[in-house]
């Protein structure tokens, strides 16, 4: 991460623009036919009363004009540009899917974010998280001591129910390394014990790492590829040091996208391990009969599934989630459209961590998702992504959806069938 320029620096701007202008971006900015078919693929457009200024091609055009005028570009224009690239796009890539030419507006916006970052213009919350990640190894500055304490504490909690369950740390040669989002040890430690419970019952050979355990990568959303590379390197180093065959990513979307699909590009070579999202691993366990779920637990609930963009469209796990749902829900209703075609909930692209100044726009753009959820009549919305999770909880309040938002792990905790012999001997009388 470079120094933050105090004033607009046209030379750096121009240099960054040249550096980032690859053959694809040039091609896309040249051939866009301005056909307008991307308009209603975008949740910002739909949620903002079909404001033409919210359509993807218009945002891309703005970026193009900026690059062309990079010498005449000044701070005022940078401010306007900033509002578009951070406040009006979650880089969900839905428009890319619907564009006849396959123009990837998300890449164009990402490039624009790099340009903005070259001028030190980035949302301060993102910057803080990235700086913390680079300094402490995780975006929430959890110390190694706190991290290990949390794992031990969660292990103890888990053992009260399942005496044989453990949370292995730095176990070399394990089948897989489980990596999480820093908010789990910080705010939701139960996520970790729930995962450990699943792995224990499935008889998995797994481990967690004392280092490189935070798989989030907010630098990706800032277009700061140098920082994103360093962050991805931390996880790769941990995995390769532990000689695991696979790295399993927690129920988080952008973490999967950055580790599995983007970081091999940043780092210049393939990983020596396979990257798997929790959703795919859970589906595998259920398919192989290694986990058994009691479907009656949620029999009185209608469930729907929020496809995180970076798990389904950009992660290829849409079908795995459907497979899990078959074992878990009696009454399951899809949103329309769904799977790879799902609308972004509005929480992606850094919107959740960006918080403050962007919150109103986030809630407004979430209207599309809120209406989709409402139309299903669901009482539970399942989503395997921390950002979707927070956003949909906010949407629930804002649009009075009356739903519960749950991750798969949270549902498993209630629905998993635990063999008698694995349960703690002394039954809790009060329960």
């Amino acid at each position: 991460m470079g120094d933050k320029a105090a004033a607009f620096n046209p030379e750096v701007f121009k240099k960054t623009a040249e550096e980032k202008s690859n053959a694809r971006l040039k091609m896309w900015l040249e051939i866009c036919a301005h056909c307008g078919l991307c308009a209603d693929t975008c949740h910002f457009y739909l949620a903002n009363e079909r404001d033409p200024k919210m359509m993807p091609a218009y945002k891309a055009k703005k970026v193009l004009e900026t690059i062309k005028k990079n010498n005449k570009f000044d701070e005022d224009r940078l401010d306007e540009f900033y509002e578009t690239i951070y406040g009006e796009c979650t880089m969900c890539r839905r428009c890319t899917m619907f564009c006849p030419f396959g123009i990837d507006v998300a890449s164009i916006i990402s490039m624009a974010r790099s340009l903005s970052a070259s001028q030190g213009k980035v949302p301060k919350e993102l910057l803080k998280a990235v700086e913390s990640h680079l300094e402490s190894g995780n975006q929430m500055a959890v110390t190694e001591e706190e991290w290990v304490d949390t794992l031990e504490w969660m292990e103890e909690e888990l053992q009260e129910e399942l005496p044989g369950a453990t949370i292995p740390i730095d176990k070399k040669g394990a089948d897989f390394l489980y990596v999480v989002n820093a908010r789990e040890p910080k705010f939701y430690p139960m996520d970790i014990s729930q995962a450990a419970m699943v792995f224990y019952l499935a008889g998995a050979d797994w481990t967690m790492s004392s280092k490189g355990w935070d798989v989030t990568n907010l630098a990706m959303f800032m277009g700061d590829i140098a920082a994103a590379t360093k962050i991805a390197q931390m996880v790769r180093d941990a995995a390769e040091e532990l000689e695991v065959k696979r790295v399993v990513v927690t129920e988080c979307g952008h973490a999967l996208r950055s580790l599995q699909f983007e970081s091999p590009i940043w780092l210049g070579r393939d990983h020596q391990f396979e990257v798997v999202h929790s959703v795919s691993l859970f589906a595998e366990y259920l398919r192989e009969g290694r986990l058994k779920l009691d479907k009656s637990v949620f029999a009185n609930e209608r469930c729907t599934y929020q496809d995180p963009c970076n798990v389904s469209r950009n992660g290829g796990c849409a079908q795995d989630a459907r497979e899990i749902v078959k074992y878990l829900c009696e009454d399951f209703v899809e949103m329309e459209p769904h799977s790879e075609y799902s609308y972004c909930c509005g929480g992606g692209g850094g919107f959740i961590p960006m918080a403050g100044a962007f919150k109103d726009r986030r809630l407004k753009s979430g209207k599309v998702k809120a209406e989709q959820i409402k139309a299903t009549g669901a009482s539970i919305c399942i989503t395997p992504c921390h950002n979707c999770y927070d956003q949909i909880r906010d949407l629930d309040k804002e649009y009075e959806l009356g739903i519960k938002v749950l991750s798969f792990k949270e549902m498993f905790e209630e629905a998993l069938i635990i063999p008698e012999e694995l349960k703690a001997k002394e039954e809790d009388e009060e329960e």
Partner: protein
Amino acid sequence: MSLYELLRGPLLWVAFGVFFGGMVVRVVLFFQLSTQKDKPIYRFFSWKWLWLSIFHWILPLNETAKKNPVVTSVGFVFHICLIVTPLFLLAHGVLWYESWEISWWSLPESVADYMTLIAIGSGLFLGIRRLVSPHVRIVTTAADYLLLAVTLAPFVTGYLAYHQYFDYQTIILLHMFFGELMLVVIPFTKLSHFLIFFFSRAVTGMEFGRRNAPSW
């Protein structure tokens, strides 16, 4: 040399030269830059996803086509008439034969006549859509209208020439001029999408494909 001879001879050579040469340069530049700066294309290259992506869009086998039946139909008809009519027009075939003694199948004249009208009509529809739909208008530039005019001009003048409306001698010269103008501008404008489309679809198809997701 008469104006006719000029347009029929040297300028036609220039037009074809700029068109083919320009497109070759475009493709070479793409490969030159992409091998340096777009390494993921080559690293994750996949014929399967390349063809699937092209196939689903060269035919209307995609969600966009389903959701926008009118624009899709008009767009397909427009493009088909645009490409097929000039290539298989009997009168053009005669010229090829005169110059090179080569010939190929041609369209019945009445069919070609209707296709010309359809090309003009569907082109006008797309132009009017630019004016009336706020979301299309906002991204439309002067170049979009100009290019549409340049694309339609050979069809309008061709139609007038075939039916010998107005002064045939003038109209046919205009027709030749506009045809050549269109060829010349293609490599420098978004009209280059006739070829670049395949490159763009390929890279996006492969990028979605390596995530095991469709891009259609």
